[in-house]
Structures are given as C-alpha cells and as structure tokens.
C-alpha cells in the first residue's frame, strides 16, 4: 500500500510535521518565498502584468508583429515602473533593497523570466530597452548616468515611449563584436571621424532589437581606419539627420520584437553624446554583455517555463487510449525532467545575480546553460503534445522557435563558451 508524503507527514509529532514540508505548493511559490520582500512583490507584479498584457497577445503578435503597438505596451509597462529600473526614486524605480542586499541584477532576471514565460517576443521588445540604456548605467560615466539616462527616464515618466536600443552588431562582423579574438581582426563597417564639436558617423548596424521603434540608440563605432580598440559609445537620437531604419528582419521566433537595421549616413553626433571616454567603447560593450547575459539566461528560462506550463496543462487534460497522459509513467518522467531542468536554470541565473557585479564567466555560463537547456525543454514540451505540439495555437512550437534565438544572440553559445575560458584564464585555466 502506497503512502503519500502528506499522509506520511501526519504520522509525525508536531516538530516533525513542522520540518516536513509536504504541501502541494508550486516551485514558483516556494522560490518566490525565498526572496526579500521587495523582490517577492516585484516578481508577483511582473507575472501579473505578463499575464494581463502579454499572454493574450502572444500568438497574434507572433503571427503578425505589426498587430501589436509596442510603444503603447512600453508605456503601460513604464507606468508600473518596469522601464526605469536603473535609477532610484524619484528619478527611476530602482529597488534600493535589491542593491543593498547585493541583488543588483536580480530584478532584471525576475522580470525577464516572467515576461518571457508569457511571450518572449513581446518580452524582448520591453527588455531590450534595459539593454539599450545599459551603457549609460554600466559605463561608470556619471554624466551619462545623470544627464543622458536622466533625460530618457524623464521622458518615460512623462508618459512617452522613450525606448532605447543597443547597437553593436554589424553586417560583416556578426559575432566578432562579442568576442575578443574575433574583434581584433573584425571587418568593421561602422565608423566615426572627428569634426569640430563632435563626430560624424557612417555605416550600418544590423539585428538591432527595437531598432524600428527606439527613440534612443546606444551605438558603438570605430574610428575610421581603426578597430575595436577605438570603439566609442554614442547616444544617438533616432531623429538625428542621416539616421534611418533599414530592413526589419523576418525571424524564426521572438517575432513581436523587431530586429532592424540602423543606417548611418553622415550623422553628426555632438561631443556631449559620447558615453564614457572616447575609445572606451569596447570595455563598455563587454561589461554590458556581462550584465545582460544572465538576463538572456532568464529569458530562456521564462520561455522554457512557459512551454512547460502549457505541456503540463495539456498532459493533465488530454487522453491517450482512455487514460490521462499524466497517468503514463513516461509522461511523468518527462514532465519531472523538465521541472528539474527549470529549477537548475533558475538556480544558475539567480546565482549569477548574487555576484556584486556580474563578470564575464558568470554571465556566459548562465546564458549558455539556460539557452541550451531551454531548447531541450521546449522540444520535450512539443514531444509531449505529439501532433498537437506542432500547432501554433498550442504555443509550445512558438516557445521552441523563440528559445532557439537565445542560443544565438548576445554572442553564439560557442562564442560564450570561449568567453568562459577567456574569463578564467589565470584562475581555473593556467
């Protein structure tokens, strides 16, 4: 005769029962309970917003990205304080408690998981803004932080869709800009030259998330004739003369977020729009990636969780030969395996955010592990649904398509593995 955990627990004394948690609570609830109060509340608010605003639009946005008004969605997220989290009140909505508690990056990871569990396309459209403002935050340039970021946040507080985009990738140097060795020999096409009062920029950037809807762009360019050692970060206004948006890519997934080309033709950028020092762009770029890669891990985690939730719901209802799918041991094994992977992914992401400042290996580890695992989880979800898994309306095939991108952007997982090695040379690797 089998004895379920809750039945077994009742045979214990009071202290024994207290220490034996057999309650049927979700892992989500249990994990949330481990967070400081401010982050517990934040996680619930992110989830509520995602369920109300993103989930109902997920499939239609995937089918027809133009059906969703991204700036309007941005404004609704901003009203809840989700788009101004790099500055403390009253300028922004940075959670002071998370900084004091050493969880600088955890709110961003929580937000990414929740938004992307509902829809990673719409989630990315909102999250890319944090990436776009990232250089203003991590450059350590007080003027960039207070004046430039302050201005963007002021516009957002005023109800404007002041979306920022991050522009590093170039048509002929896809992964080069995310890798030390590649960058040294990269064929860069985006250049600047000094002129009185500023710089003139020419060239193209590609695959820029939110490129078509951004009002602000943090863009990296090399000195004419130079390489990444001369890279400089500029804050561009999309209304600048000579700046235009080129083609928007037709992507496999995360389709609600545009990936667009930004074209620069003799764009004059005044001196006061340089972020950090001239020629410090490479360092800023690398550190932005250190901060953003754990968040990519969280995006992957969210996508996988969404696929798992759809698969679990399906298996709880669908029948095979008269029995519920969850009555089959093979299905239970697969669902449990998915939940194990989700827990490991979350542990990896949350651990990466525990470092005071994320470093190269930490970010890359979280990104690679979570994106590879998310791809596996999404395929498992598709398999559990059988033929139904291939239908757009059941969401898991969308999750698989969405997850695949996390293995590519912010450096392919091959580049990220090399980044782990590079980061730890002199430490683990001697």
């Amino acid at each position, binding site marked *: 005769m089998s004895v379920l955990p809750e039945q077994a627990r009742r045979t214990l004394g009071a202290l024994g029962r207290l220490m034996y948690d057999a309650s049927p609570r979700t892992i989500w609830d249990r994990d949330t309970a481990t967070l400081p109060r401010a982050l517990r509340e934040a996680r619930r608010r992110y989830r509520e917003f995602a369920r109300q605003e993103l989930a109902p639009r997920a499939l239609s946005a995937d089918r027809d990205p133009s059906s969703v008004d991204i700036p309007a969605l941005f404004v609704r997220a901003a009203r809840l304080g989700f788009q101004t989290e790099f500055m403390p009140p009253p300028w922004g909505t940075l959670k002071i408690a998370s900084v004091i508690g050493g969880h600088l990056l955890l709110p961003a990871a929580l937000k990414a998981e929740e938004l992307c569990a509902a829809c990673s396309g719409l989630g990315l459209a909102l999250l890319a803004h944090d990436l776009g403002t990232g250089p203003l935050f991590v450059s350590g340039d007080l003027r960039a932080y207070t004046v430039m970021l302050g201005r963007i946040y002021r516009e957002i507080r005023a109800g404007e869709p002041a979306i920022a985009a991050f522009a590093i990738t170039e048509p002929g140097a896809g992964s080069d800009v995310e890798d030390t060795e590649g960058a040294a*020999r990269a*064929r860069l096409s985006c250049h600047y030259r000094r002129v009185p009062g500023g710089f003139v920029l020419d060239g193209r950037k590609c695959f820029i998330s939110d490129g078509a809807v951004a009002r602000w762009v943090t863009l990296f360019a090399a000195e004419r004739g130079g390489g990444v050692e001369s890279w400089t970060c500029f804050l561009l206004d999309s209304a600048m003369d000579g700046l235009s948006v080129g083609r928007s890519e037709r992507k496999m997934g995360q389709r609600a977020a545009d990936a667009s080309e930004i074209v620069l033709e003799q764009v004059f950028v005044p001196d006061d729009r340089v972020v950090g020092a001239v020629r410090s762009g490479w360092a800023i770029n690398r550190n932005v990636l250190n901060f953003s890669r754990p968040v990519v891990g969280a995006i992957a985690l969210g996508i996988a969780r969404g696929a798992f939730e759809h698969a679990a719901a399906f298996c709880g209802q669908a029948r095979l*030969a008269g029995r519920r799918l969850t009555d089959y041991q093979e299905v239970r094994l697969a669902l449990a395996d998915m939940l194990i992977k989700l827990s490991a992914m979350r542990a990896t992401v949350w651990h990466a955010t525990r470092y005071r400042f994320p470093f190269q290996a930490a970010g890359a580890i979280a990104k690679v592990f979570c994106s590879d695992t998310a791809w596996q989880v999404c*395929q498992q979800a*598709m398999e559990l649904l059988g*033929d139904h898994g291939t239908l757009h309306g059941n969401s898991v*095939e969308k999750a698989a398509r969405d997850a*695949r991108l996390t293995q590519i952007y912010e450096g392919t997982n*091959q580049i990220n593995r090399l980044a782990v090695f590079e980061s730890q040379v002199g430490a683990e690797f001697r």
Partner: protein
Amino acid sequence: MDSEVLSAFRETARQFARREVKPMVGTEGRDGRLDQLDRVLAGAGEAGLLASGASETPDHEHCVWGIASRRSPRASLAVLEEVARECAGVATCLHAAGLGLFEARAGAVPGPTAVALLSDDWLLDWASIDSPPEGAVRLLASGDGDSLRLDGEASFVLCAPPCQSVVVYAALGSNWHRVALPLDTPGIRSRPVGERCGLAALEVLHVTFDEVRVLGDRLLHPRSPRPFLRRLMLGLSAVALGNARAALDGARSYAATRYQGGALIERQPAVQLLLGESATRLAAAAAFLGRAAKDEGDDAEACWRAFAAKHRVVGDCCDAVTDCLQVLGGYGYMEDYRLEKRLRDALTLKSLAVRPDVLRRLCAERVGGEP
C-alpha cells in the same frame, strides 16, 4: 534493388526538385510561394513521382509507394530524400499521397490524391497494432462484412492538397477494417487542423465521421496496419534525412564564404565541430535508415526497425539541422537563408504521426522481448 535503377530514381527526383520545388521555396515568404504548390504537385505527377488514385497508369508502379515499392521501399525513400532536400513539406505531400495509393490502389477512390489515415491516439504498444485496443480508438465501425457504418473522428490526417479522398482504419471489435472514401461522402466533414510549425505544404486535416455508410466497393481487404505504419515511419525518416542533408550543405556553403575575425568561418574550430558533428549524425542516420529499408516484407522485426528508424533518424536529423543553423549565427535564424524553415520542418517531423514517447515505448517493449 539494382543500384543503377536506384540511382535513376534518385536522379529523376533530384532534377524534378531542382527544377520545380526549389523555385517555389525561393526566399519569399515564410515557407515560399505556396500558391505554386498545385503546379509543383502536378509536375510531380507528370514526372511519375506523385501517386494518383485517378486511374491505372504505368506511373503507379514507380511513383512514391507505387506497386514497385512492395518489393523494396528503397526507391521511394530515395525520391523522398531528394525532394526533401529542396522542401520537406513537398516531400511529405508525395509521401502522404503515396501511402494513400499504397492502401487503396488506383481507381478505388477519386484522384488526384488520397489520404492514408491513422490517428495515433490508439497506438500504445505492439499488440495494439494488430488488434485495436478496446476503448482507445476514436473511429469505430459497426456492421457486417458487406457494409459498415463509421462513427468517430480522426485527427492529423496527412494529405497532399487538394485532398479528395480518405483511407481510414476503423476498429470493429478486435479487428481493423480499412475503408476508402471520397471526402464528399455524406456524413464526412473535414477541416484543416490549423497553422502549424513546419511542413506548410502538407495539408493536415481533422476528419469527423457521423453515421457514414460504407458499402462493399469501398471496403478494402482487412489487414494489420503494420505495412502502412512501416512505410509511414521509413518515409518520414527519409524526409528528415533529406532535409538535414540540405541543411548541412547550406551551412558548409555559408561557412566557406563568410568571415569571422578576419578568417573564413569554416576555419574556426567551433564551426568545424558543429559541421563535423552534423555530418557524423547524418552518416549514422543514413546507415540506420538504410538497414531498416533493406528488410523484405513487413514482419514484426522489419516493423520494429522502421519505428526505431523514425525515433533515431528523425531526432538525430533535427539535432544536425539545429547545429547547422548555429553555423550561420543570426543569419541562420532569419527566414532568408531557409535554415530556420528546415529547423521548423525538422521539429514538425519529430512529432508527426506518432508520439515520440510512444515510439520510445515501442522500442523499449521490443528490448523486453516483443513483438
């Protein structure tokens, strides 16, 4: 089968695919110019590759799953693989139409295409293949040997558009009965299952049967679905293999012409590893499928090998395609290079027709001494 004959089949299919299918796939739209599909399938019929239920013609011998395939499936598999190199969806259309003809024979149902149908909600174990499990089958027959009444439904019915007829297996007690019917038969309703991840050229239907009367001329000789299932599995495996081989070709071409860090991508060890691993997987998949295709007859062992091939080959091919896509980085993820289409098709093939967990169970059961 003589290797020269096999090569001739392969070459015919290759030429057809390059001439007709490749331009349809092109670079426009998510899945190409599907408005040209009718023309492409008509071309496949003219080339003798697409089965037709319309009438007896010599082509019926050599088209995909034509009469000649009863001796060996290798020619049909070669054709499917070659066509899948250009478009897995079109190849699956040929596969579905061929299976319809394999079940119904030409003239039994109206042309130009027929559907072979087996909903997988009953497939649990080897025993269920020979005898429908009680209470599990959603399409039931009642009546005697001269006429039947069909009630129930079948989902994920594969066909080459425009579908005009359907072949179904229905349970009558502990026996399977095969029936060939025009889709406009009173009591039959069909609708597309909806937007799918991949294989967009293939039509997939949900069909319901409400008091459908079947008279003697529509009743096919009762038999186990083993021969059908074996061909279904082998064909899907061949489509997956062709799709993945083309993905590898595309990744190799890209790597030979694009630069990273000032050097051709193909010189990067990380890229070499991805390509090498893909090539190795595909070599193993081809060997596995080749062995399964060698079996003569449709006995339990041959059937098991076909199921194992679907399980292993389609999975390995999907892994190979995703590695190939990775070689292209961000460009692989964009529709223009068609690698993402190949990955969507590969993902769809994994779940098509039989649940992967059921495939695993069937393989596990075999290890335990069955069938």
